[in-house]
């Protein structure tokens, strides 16, 4: 763990005041070590200097000028000729992980600073993910995970925070991520081909690592357009701590911006809270202990009528807390991780007089993993292996009366009947999912590395056991180019309403990925990959009987390109993804597109830091989503409902969308505080492309859900 502390010391100020003075200083990190190669620039850009091996620099600057200090791996620092011996505390925490770097082709790894500077990201993880290759970029979160990877279904991908799943990535209100960017250390996006240590997903995985406490106390507060947050971190008596809390502010001003013509009566104004706590303590030189907590609380209640008629009531409350205790052991190539995590989830939904969900799902997870890395063993250049096991026990207490859950590929539920309670359940059941895995990676020589592993999942609800072999071959081709080929089997259990049916077995996929990774230069990486995913046992609903079964099959094939540039003041990002996802819902049925099939997706972003400013822009282009057309409708006069008749499933497509996002960051001092101000504007030229369609009450009018015409996000952060 290295925490950066930039120290500009002994800054000499000469006379007279108006003439440039010769400034001497030093840049050091938290441990007092000199930082060599740091750039010290006068804000106006008139001159710059580079620190030497002792961290020393010299520069001529006018009195009152600001000196901007940048160094790879450290946050931006500020100094001035007058601020002799000024101590500049950097916010950046660089955690040195014991694990090897991600070995999966196509993985994108972003540090917190990268996420923050991504234009169009609005300092939000969910929005930043839209820049990843293979992610379906949609203005609303999709499914419970919030994301769709490689055109499959939202349930096929998982979001992990410090190795454990979270029930949802976003707040129901405002669709902000449940974890602010300030509380994470890094984000790893793995669109497919992930290792044996991750399971219960058939597409991709997003892994978030929370932020560990810094060496020195550090507090920050942030006020944005829709929320406010505070974060504190530091180290006390060897205990590293990070604690943050956030609250939405939408409820404070929403009553004033809602048009009076809305037939609406808000009884609980939409609001959310979230919290993140992480404590790290080194028990011995080999054992470290980490305790963490992650929580979220959303609430909204309203009547869709002025008179608060009970049949127009709508209530949504979701709250969860995940608490984790993890111990890690490191010694001479051995690593052991032991973790226990519990989650308390309560969710309540009510609509009108009949539809409701009252859910309480406490869950406990125990996880253990051992790994060992050695060199020159058994004739291999290097050899590492890992073995682990995990048990997840969940008690589901559920009182439910709702319409049938929408299954992938079904036309949208166009007839909105508030009395529809086709699915009812009141009771409790428990599920126990066991998993065990092992893998080994061997360097056959300096160029060839092979990984093979096996994961076994047992799902108690269905009694199914899934064997999932996975492996990868990596061959160094020289000049920083590595060729990689991987293949693996994956599975995920039924979720939500489909979990009520014990007869349904896990969905499965088999993924094959091949491509090249080219480390062009320091800070410049280029990846290209081709993939093919075969899926079976997909859960589908029989058109005639309405019964759910595992009769579906599907395939996804595509290609992805990812280029990242992180050099000096430049940050560049280029992704292109091609994907084609099709499925057959039952033997003999016609092949159709997945609901989230997106053939083309392009993201180009660049950001440049100069002085106290950072400027960025991002262009994105994406094919529209498939849709099922309505051919006509039959009016049921007694029910006063028009029932649509549909054309072929997903046989039309929304138009291609493109937009430009820009971002400006500015740093300045305000008293003792280091302030960061940002303006992030999405869809600058207001391209209001249709992203989906809906119909009027009698299906003679087709209308569109459109992209937000322009979405500015502003924020002001103070760090102390």
């Amino acid at each position, binding site marked *: 763990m290295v925490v950066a502390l930039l120290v500009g010391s002994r800054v000499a100020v000469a006379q007279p005041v108006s003439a440039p003075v010769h400034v001497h200083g030093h840049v050091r990190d938290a441990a007092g070590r000199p930082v060599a190669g740091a750039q010290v620039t006068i804000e106006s850009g008139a001159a710059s200097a580079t620190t030497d091996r002792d961290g020393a620099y010299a520069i001529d600057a006018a009195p009152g000028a600001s000196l901007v200090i940048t160094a790879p791996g450290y946050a931006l620092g500020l100094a001035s000729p007058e601020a002799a011996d000024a101590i500049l505390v950097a916010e950046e925490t660089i955690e040195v992980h014991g694990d090897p770097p991600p070995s999966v082709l196509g993985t994108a790894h972003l540090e917190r600073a990268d996420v923050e500077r991504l234009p169009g990201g609005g300092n939000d993880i969910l929005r930043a993910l839209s820049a990843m290759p293979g992610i379906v970029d949609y*203005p*609303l*979160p999709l499914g419970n995970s919030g994301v769709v990877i490689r055109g499959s279904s939202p349930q096929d991908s998982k979001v992990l925070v410090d190795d454990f799943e979270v029930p949802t990535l976003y707040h*129901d*209100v*405002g*669709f902000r991520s449940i974890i602010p960017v300030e509380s994470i250390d890094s984000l790893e996006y793995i669109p497919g081909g992930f290792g044996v240590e991750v399971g219960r997903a058939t597409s991709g995985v997003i892994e978030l690592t929370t932020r560990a406490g810094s060496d020195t106390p550090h507090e920050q507060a942030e006020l944005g357009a829709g929320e406010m947050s505070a974060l504190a971190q530091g180290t006390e008596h060897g205990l590293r701590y990070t604690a943050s809390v956030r609250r939405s502010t939408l409820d404070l001003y929403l009553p004033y911006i*809602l048009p009076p*013509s*809305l*037939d609406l009566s808000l009884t609980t104004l*939409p609001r959310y809270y979230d919290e993140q706590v992480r404590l790290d303590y080194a028990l011995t030189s080999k054992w470290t202990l980490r305790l963490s907590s992650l929580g979220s609380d959303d609430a*909204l209640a*309203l009547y869709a*009528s*002025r*008179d608060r*008629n009970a049949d*127009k009531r*709508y209530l*949504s409350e979701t709250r969860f807390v995940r608490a984790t205790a993890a111990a890690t052991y490191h010694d001479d190539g051995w690593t052991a991780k032991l973790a226990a995590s519990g989650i308390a989830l309560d969710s309540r939904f009510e*609509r009108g007089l009949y539809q409701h969900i009252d859910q309480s799902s406490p869950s406990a997870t125990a996880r253990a993993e051992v790994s060992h890395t050695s060199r020159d063993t058994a004739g291999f250049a290097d050899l590492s292996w890992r073995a682990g096991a995990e048990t997840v026990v969940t008690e589901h207490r559920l009182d439910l009366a709702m319409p049938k859950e929408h299954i992938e590929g079904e036309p949208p539920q166009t007839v909105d009947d508030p009395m529809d309670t086709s699915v009812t359940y009141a009771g409790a059941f428990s599920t126990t999912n066991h998993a065990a895995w092992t893998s080994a990676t061997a360097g056959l020589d300096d160029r060839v590395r092979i990984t093979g592993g096996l994961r076994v999942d047992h799902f108690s609800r269905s009694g199914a056991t899934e064997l999932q072999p996975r492996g990868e071959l990596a061959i160094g081709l020289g000049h920083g180019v590595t060729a990689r080929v991987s293949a693996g089997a994956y599975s995920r259990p039924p979720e939500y309403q489909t979990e009520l049916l014990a007869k349904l077995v896990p969905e499965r996929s088999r993924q094959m990925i091949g491509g090249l990774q080219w480390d062009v230069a320091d800070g410049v990486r280029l990846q290209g990959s081709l993939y093919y995913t075969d899926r079976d046992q997909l859960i589908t609903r029989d058109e005639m009987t309405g019964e759910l079964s595992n009769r579906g099959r599907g395939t996804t094939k595509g290609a992805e390109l990812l280029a990242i540039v992180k050099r000096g003041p430049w940050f560049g990002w280029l992704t292109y993804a091609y994907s084609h996802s099709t499925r057959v819902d039952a033997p003999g049925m016609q092949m159709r597109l997945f609901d989230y099939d997106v053939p083309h997706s392009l993201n180009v972003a660049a950001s440049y830091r100069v002085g106290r400013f950072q400027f960025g822009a991002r262009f994105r282009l994406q094919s529209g989503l498939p849709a099922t057309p309505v051919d*006509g*409708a*039959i*009016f*049921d*006069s*007694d029910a*006063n409902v028009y029932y649509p008749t549909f054309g072929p499933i997903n046989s039309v497509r929304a138009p291609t969308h493109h937009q430009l996002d820009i971002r400006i960051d500015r740093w300045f001092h305000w008293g003792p505080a280091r302030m960061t101000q940002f303006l992030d504007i999405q869809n600058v030229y207001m391209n*209001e492309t249709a992203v989906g369609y*809906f*119909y*009027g*009450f*009698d299906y*003679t*009018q087709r*209308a*569109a*859900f*459109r*992209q*937000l*015409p322009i979405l500015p996000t502003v924020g002001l952060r103070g760090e102390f």
Partner: protein
Amino acid sequence: MKTALLLLLVAGCIDPVDPAWSLNHDHVVVARATPPRIHAGDATTLDALVAHAGGPTTVESPLSASAGRTQVTGSIIAVNAPKDVAYDTGDTPVDVLMTFARGTNRALSPVQVKKTVWLGEPADNPAMPDVTIGGAPAGDALTVPADQDVYLSTSVPAGWRVNWLTSAGQLFQDDEPTSYLHVLPADAHDGELACVIRDAEGGVVWKVWPIHAE
């Protein structure tokens, strides 16, 4: 997802469509069988209240009708329930599928309408209950103040459903016995107001008033 739709609506990201309470939109408002419940072998007459974009509502007969045992006689379409079927288990529904011209725009495809006629103990359509507009009993023609809420109310037994429709102004709580009409300055100030009531036995009654806002 419903929260999402709500917030999208607030954010104005959804194209506008005509609301179900609009009489300024070509559609079949309600179909009626007179009477709605008949003895097996008797006849009932079918018609519908049809709204027209830019014009007044009309009551129209179906262009065609079919059910298991429908007979068409001249311009009157009737459901003749057969006497040879035993209905000793109580009321039996007969779904009649009809086609109506959708509004005044005959180029639009005809709309299909399903209306259930019940065979069993005969019953008539209900009588129109009293309706108050702005606190006063509704007359034959209505004049309401513009740019303010106008209270619309009727009283029906439990299980009956009320729908209000208009071509002048905006309606709130249009599917409740108590509704509000608000005619904004930009809205049409002349049009119609309709109250449609469906009882719990398949019966239907409606009343349409010309309305003027000033």
